[in-house]
């Protein structure tokens, strides 16, 4: 049953986020004996307390009101290559035009359009792991969009879910398409989602005229207040799911943490000059 398989894939992704010990361990161990991930993973999930944490909420006073403020916020929270795994570099072109965003048309084709009235700014950055030896390149991206209100942002998330129900195949640009798309969305406290108001996982395959495929593709997108953050990964020849997951698994959580730092109700109140320096560019607009 296709439905069950899609859930399984998504579930594995979500669970992989929950099992960071098992997922991120091992890679760099120098003299580690064969620490079976099952042992570590067991204790990792046994203690999962999905909704035990305080609820991060955004502070309307800190939310951007103008396009310039929104663009400044995006610059502070969006990931560069550093949050991805080893070997991830900037792709060319690197950044999109912050006054435009991609819109899916009725013909299943994505096109760049001016931002709608309810969005203040949107930026996408593109990354890649270059091809190496027998392995093909991996494409990655990070996107942050700032809306005027949290309700506007939540409608963007809802539209994304609708799009996958309407169009399971989408054309990103001529010669580059996504197929077999399915989405699942987790409210706070569900499926290990504790830092976003709503977390969307889209899974499918990416196919390219030049790069081949289908390869695994997934997009994760979370709403926090008026900010929608997302990451994508499109695999390449010889790249395993685990390898792809390790590249993106922590990027979205860390971007969300940055958003929380910037506009969260608790931001800056807990400690440290570190917060002040991290947000020292505020007001630069």
């Amino acid at each position, binding site marked *: 049953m296709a*439905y069950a398989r899609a*859930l399984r894939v998504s579930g594995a992704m*979500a669970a992989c986020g929950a099992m*960071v*010990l098992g997922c*991120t*361990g*091992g890679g760099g*161990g*120098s*003299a*580690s*004996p*064969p620490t079976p991930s099952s042992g*570590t*993973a*067991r*204790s*990792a*999930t*046994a203690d*999962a*307390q*999905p*909704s035990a*944490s*305080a609820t991060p909420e955004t502070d309307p006073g800190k939310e951007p009101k103008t396009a310039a403020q929104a663009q400044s916020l995006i610059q502070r929270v969006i990931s560069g*290559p*550093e*949050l991805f795994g*080893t*070997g991830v570099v900037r792709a060319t072109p690197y950044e999109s035009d912050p006054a435009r965003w991609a819109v899916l048309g009725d013909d299943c084709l994505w096109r760049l359009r001016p931002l709608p009235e309810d969005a203040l700014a949107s930026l996408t950055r593109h990354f890649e792991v270059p091809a*190496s*030896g027998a392995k093909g390149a991996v494409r990655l991206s990070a996107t942050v969009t700032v809306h005027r209100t949290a309700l506007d942002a*939540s409608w963007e*998330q*809802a539209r994304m*879910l609708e799009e996958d*129900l309407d169009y399971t195949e989408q054309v990103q640009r001529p010669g580059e398409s996504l197929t077999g798309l399915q989405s*699942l*969305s*987790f409210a706070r406290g569900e*499926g*290990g*989602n*504790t*830092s976003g*108001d*709503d977390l969307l996982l889209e899974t499918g395959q990416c196919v390219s005229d030049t790069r081949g495929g289908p390869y695994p593709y997934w997009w994760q997108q979370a709403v926090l207040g008026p900010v929608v953050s997302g990451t994508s990964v499109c695999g390449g020849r010889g790249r395993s799911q685990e*390898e792809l997951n390790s590249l993106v*698994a*922590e990027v979205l*959580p*860390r971007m*969300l*943490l940055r958003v929380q*730092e910037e506009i969260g109700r*608790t931001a800056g109140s807990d400690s440290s000059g*570190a917060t002040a320096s*991290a947000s020292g560019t505020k007001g630069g607009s």
Partner: protein
Amino acid sequence: MERLLPADPSRLGGYRLLGRLGAGGMGVVYLARGGAGELAAVKVIQPEFAQQAEFRARFRREADSARGVDSPWVVPVLSADTEGPAPWLTTAFVPGPSLAEAVAECGPLPARVVRVLGKVLARALDAVHQAGLVHRDVKPGNVLLALDGPRLIDFGIARPTAAEETELTSDSMVVGTPGFLSPEQARALPVGPASDVFSLGCVLAYTATGRLPFGTGAADALLYRTVHDTPDLDEVEDVELRDLLERCLAKEPAERPHLADIDAELVEDAPAGSIGWLPDSVVRMVADRSAEMLALPGVEPTEVSGESASQRPVRRRVLALAAGGTALLAAGGGAALWAVLRDNDEKKPASSAAHRDWVIGVQADLSGPLKAAGTAQERAARLAVEQFNARGDKPFPLTLRVMDDRGEPARAQAVARRLTGDRDVFAVLGPTGYASAQSAVEVYESAGLPLVTVSELSVSAVQSALLAKPRRYFRAAPLAAYSAFATVTALAARGSRRPGLLVDRAGGITGMESVNVVHSATGAGSVALYARVVPALAPDVSAVVADMLAHGVDSFYYTGTPERAAPLARALAARKFTGPRFLDIPSATPAFVSAAGPAGEGWQVLAPHIDPGAAAVRPFATAYRKRYGSAPGDWAAEAYDVTRLLADRLSALAGSGKRRPSRTQVADTLAKAQFKGLVTTYAFDADHQLITRQVQHYQVKGGRFVYDGPVGVSAS
């Protein structure tokens, strides 16, 4: 350890490779033997990474860093080649389990042990810092327990403290292990030695309680809690230790104690090259593991082939071994130790079957959001047990142990621990809902205790809790997915050609699961689904009704909550919409009927549970009414059936000898069950889901949901 692959080299430097200890994205770690017969771990970097200048620089740094550290508690680097096409590095091999494994297998360690460990690790880290490094990945997996004491390992991500800071701020990877990261690491800020102190605090808290001070779960949750939350050290019973850990876990690096102070505050006899201070169970594990690792082909090729590590030595013998372990290993090698261990037959205390209760547990939400369902199940289980115990031919009296988890994740987990920790419990009925399942199922899986639910019917709760399919979690009613699938069929059967799916995100993941089923089911059929998704923040879902009707929708299927379904019902009634209208399971409750009023008339639902007033379950309803003075609620009949199923299986296993079965035997016999209950015949598929072909149909008539009987689920 795994065998070498054909592509693996047989020698590297002066080392003969024996097998693979582990492999990751960047390279492979081999077990190897040097010219003098010494064992070593050889880490080889994959050529594709070696081609990257940045990576090679990092690897060079790791080798240089580790060589500069001088401590008996830090695993020494023996040799390295950082310039060849496939750079490698060898460290002494420590044939013991990691602290992570020890805690996972043996549970939390006593406070005294934690203090000794804290003292040793403080010294080890101090040596690391003295060498001008920050370890940056202090975690239980990087602490190995050897026969001659603990060791800190892995300098894979250690960095100079200050010298290269500017180089590292922009393109450095964010690394480390969430759960043990410091707040400054979590925020990707520059880190100093105090960051390792924070991680050490996490490691010690984990060792003392078996739990992480900021919980576990998804990386984002961990990072968030690390930065914002107060650490949970409630279970650290030693007051002085708890005080020290609180200071180690200060959010502000400058407020954390120095390592020398930690060393001084932890007043214990420092271990002089032994593990005698560790609990017996851990000592046994260290000895076992050491024996296994040292008795390897290529080390001592005879003696051990075909033998498993299942034979455990008795405790006293191992203590003697541990005391003189190093000497024994030096003198006789692994095979000798192995031989000693094998001589001991495991002598279990004779199990006294007398005076032990036969217990069925109930984990239910008795006071939280699902208390109606939970209470109905608990009462039904009680009735079933009372009836069983009233039988003259009962093989044993059954005891019911009921615990309320309030539907709260943390409490659900605690309840699961209590029930799994009671060795007299053979199986548990529950949990009631999603949140409890998500945090409790893993506890039952780990303990091997069968858990049978009648009302938690999602796919994703168990999937987000486990990576594998469940071995001990049984679902004794049709999954919610069947109801969604049957709803699509029902809409088509009622003539709908353009079904409208209104997904209210207030319904959460259980609603989303239905959506995916509907999408797949309609995608293959002749109907043209029109779907709208409304965010939970939207005040009124009926905002999309006009758009849906404009798209020719001729029937509605709503997934969400009872309260938010009511305005939709009113909006459709106002537009005189008379097409088929279905609710999903969570929104079809009396709360919907009372909130919608007359507009709720005619709304339908296909649900997994039978009407407790249905003819099929009348004997139960009658007995229930007699016992409790009221009619049974939803899910009671299923819970009654399941309790009887469990009693039946236990009776069968006990046989005439009245032997107490193991939990594994109970799970196995449940998996093969063919039990005829009142609701249905209970049999499970390979995923431990009820094998079923029907769901139950209800329709709102006269201000309440009226049962219309079962509906077949066609497997088209």
